């Protein structure tokens, strides 16, 4: 029976193929030290230099971008293709529960560098039991970005100091905006209600949870931010651009920057690169000044070393070089992520006049904001809780949902979230 053997052979072959999978590597590229980062997360020039400098150790940066969190969690649960080093965003507290997946950077000698970095930033990368999970990359000091040319065209204050004085509080800012929009119909003061809420919260030292794990989102700071966002909507100051959370989700906004529909935005420094890249034709028309309501911090990232990294000490050498105060100044100059090492604030590289902002020394504006940031406690659920509030603000803004109902829905969504996570 030749057919039988042939068939048996084929079946056996197929089975063998199916079952004898050779194990995939634990790390993304064995023999190398991989770093996952996202676009505009680190300066390409610094990364290139590091690739040469640490070629012996096999340093190998890979841009994973907005999928990084999803991919990192997937590789951690799959135990395969893990990066040796990875950037983590301001949701770093969400990884504290799985801190054993990462190297405690204190065991690599991180303590001796501690003094070079902002204390609150260092704290934010440390787990409650004192493991240093993430090495500080950038901070997100907020400022007001605005269109100098259009402000001037409307006959409003347009020089940074004048604007800062005119929009000292959020209420001033909104009044200013109403006048501005009357002069420039069809344009909007600010992106959306979400921005107002987020950056109001960025100015608050008390966020959504306290250190005892109690929800405090019903209290004054959140209510104040919520009401402020609603008032901006009621006054018709928000454009309400569609934003699906990914970079392309913001194409409407990119288009608005390009054609001048968005007159100003309160944002952290890290958006600078995105504005420059998506609206290059507006170079020179932008200026920066102190944010309404004062200093605040929104976002800022870290680099962690995963526990599968075969040479954690070599990886730590790379990380601490990449994020040294000197190099932080270069990251800022290249992609606009603001340093977490105070020495870099005054570094000559960081303090280059920026022609995109009409020759302003942007580092001074952000540096002023960064110095005023008060330390705050971030719980592992802060980002998700904040999303519950902002999702509902979008509903009010875009779909005309009743604000009272929106608040109740946000609260019940948060309750469910905390219940699912086992906090309540």
């Amino acid at each position: 029976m030749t057919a039988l053997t042939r068939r048996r052979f084929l079946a056996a072959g197929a089975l063998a193929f199916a079952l004898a999978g050779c194990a995939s590597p634990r790390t993304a590229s064995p023999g190398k030290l991989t770093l996952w980062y996202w676009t505009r997360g680190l300066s390409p020039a610094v990364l290139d230099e590091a690739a040469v400098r640490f070629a012996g150790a096999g340093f190998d940066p890979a841009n994973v971008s907005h999928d990084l969190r999803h991919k990192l969690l997937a590789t951690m649960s799959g135990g395969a293709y893990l990066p040796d080093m990875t950037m983590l965003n301001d949701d770093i507290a969400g990884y504290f529960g799985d801190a054993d997946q990462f190297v405690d950077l204190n065991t690599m000698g991180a303590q001796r560098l501690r003094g070079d970095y902002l204390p609150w930033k260092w704290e934010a990368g440390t787990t409650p039991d004192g493991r240093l999970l993430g090495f500080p990359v950038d901070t997100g000091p907020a400022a007001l970005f605005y269109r100098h040319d259009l402000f001037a065209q409307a006959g409003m204050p347009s020089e940074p100091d004048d604007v800062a004085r005119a929009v000292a509080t959020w209420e001033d800012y909104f009044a200013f905006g109403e006048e501005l929009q009357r002069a420039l119909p069809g344009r909007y003061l600010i992106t959306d209600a979400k921005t107002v809420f987020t950056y109001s919260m960025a100015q608050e030292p008390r966020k959504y949870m306290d250190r005892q794990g109690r929800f405090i989102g019903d209290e004054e700071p959140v209510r104040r931010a919520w009401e402020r966002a609603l008032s901006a909507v009621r006054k018709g100051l928000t454009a309400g651009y569609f934003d699906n959370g990914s970079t392309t989700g913001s194409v409407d906004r990119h288009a608005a920057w390009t054609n001048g529909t968005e007159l100003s935005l309160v944002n952290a420094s890290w958006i600078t690169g995105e504005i420059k890249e998506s609206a290059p034709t507006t170079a020179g028309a932008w200026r920066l000044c102190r944010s309404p309501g004062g200093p605040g911090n929104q976002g800022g990232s870290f680099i962690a070393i995963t526990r599968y990294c075969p040479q954690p000490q070599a990886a730590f050498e790379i990380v601490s070089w990449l994020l040294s105060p000197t190099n932080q100044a270069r990251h800022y100059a290249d992609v606009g992520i603001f340093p977490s090492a105070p020495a870099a604030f005054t570094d000559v590289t960081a303090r280059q006049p920026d022609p995109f902002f009409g020759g302003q020394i942007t580092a001074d504006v952000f540096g002023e904001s960064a110095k005023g940031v008060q330390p705050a406690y971030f719980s592992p659920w802060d980002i998700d809780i904040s999303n519950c509030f902002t999702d509902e603000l979008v509903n009010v803004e875009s779909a005309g949902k009743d604000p009272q109902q929106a608040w109740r829905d946000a609260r019940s969504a948060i309750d469910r979230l905390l219940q699912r996570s086992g906090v309540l």
Partner: protein
Amino acid sequence: MTPSLRVKLLGGGLLAVGAVITLFPYYWLAVMATNTTSDIFTTPPKLTFGSHLFDNLAEVFASIDFFGSLLNTVIVAVATTVLVLFFDSLAAFTFAKYRFPGRNVLFGILLATFVVPTQLAAIPQFSIMATLGWVGDLKALIIPAAANAFGIFWMRQYCASALPDELLEAARMDGCGFFRTYWNVALPVLRPALAFLGIFTFISAWNDYLWPLIIMVDSRNLTLQVALSQLNGVYGTDYSLVMAGTLLAILPLLVVFLIGSRHFIKNIAAGAVKG
């Protein structure tokens, strides 16, 4: 003008309008891929081709490993198609033409698997792939898709009607064993059905998105669809670049389709009417 001619002209006109609307997104894609991002963002939008296609394409090639992803997608699509054709036709042939204990029960189980939503298995499948060490590996895309209930069901119908028992009986008389009968007698007769199932499988494997998105975790080893979604995320500020990448990603399959379209379209219809 007779009423029937008027109806015909109207019908023809509407068909043409419909076709233009259907094809418009392709045209719009080509327009965006050949312009700069600022051109795309102007109001009213520019509706004519620009001259930046090659700049945009060059940027795509510099930004993502396009040919690597293309190669991965081709490997997955070809391997899946070959395996599906072999396993499905063999099983379909067996179900259609042979009687063996448990046949009906087994076929019933096969039909029942239709209603199991794929996402029900997605989380544990991820763990299984982790256990097998296939996370981030093309095997994770090929092996689970190597045989499917739809193909077996569809081919079985075809076998039952296209393969006369006399032919198989004659093969048996000639001393052909089971596998030889399948290989030498059944397969040639099944060729039209294989062609359809092949193109169908190839297209679905090529366009598959959710599972590759979950399992292909190595950002430098992706399939085309996932690479496209990454291009979209990483270079979102450069819209014309994203569009050039999108155009590139759909072209190969469109060419395959245009070559095989006549045959494929005919069989889609045949499958539906008979099934």
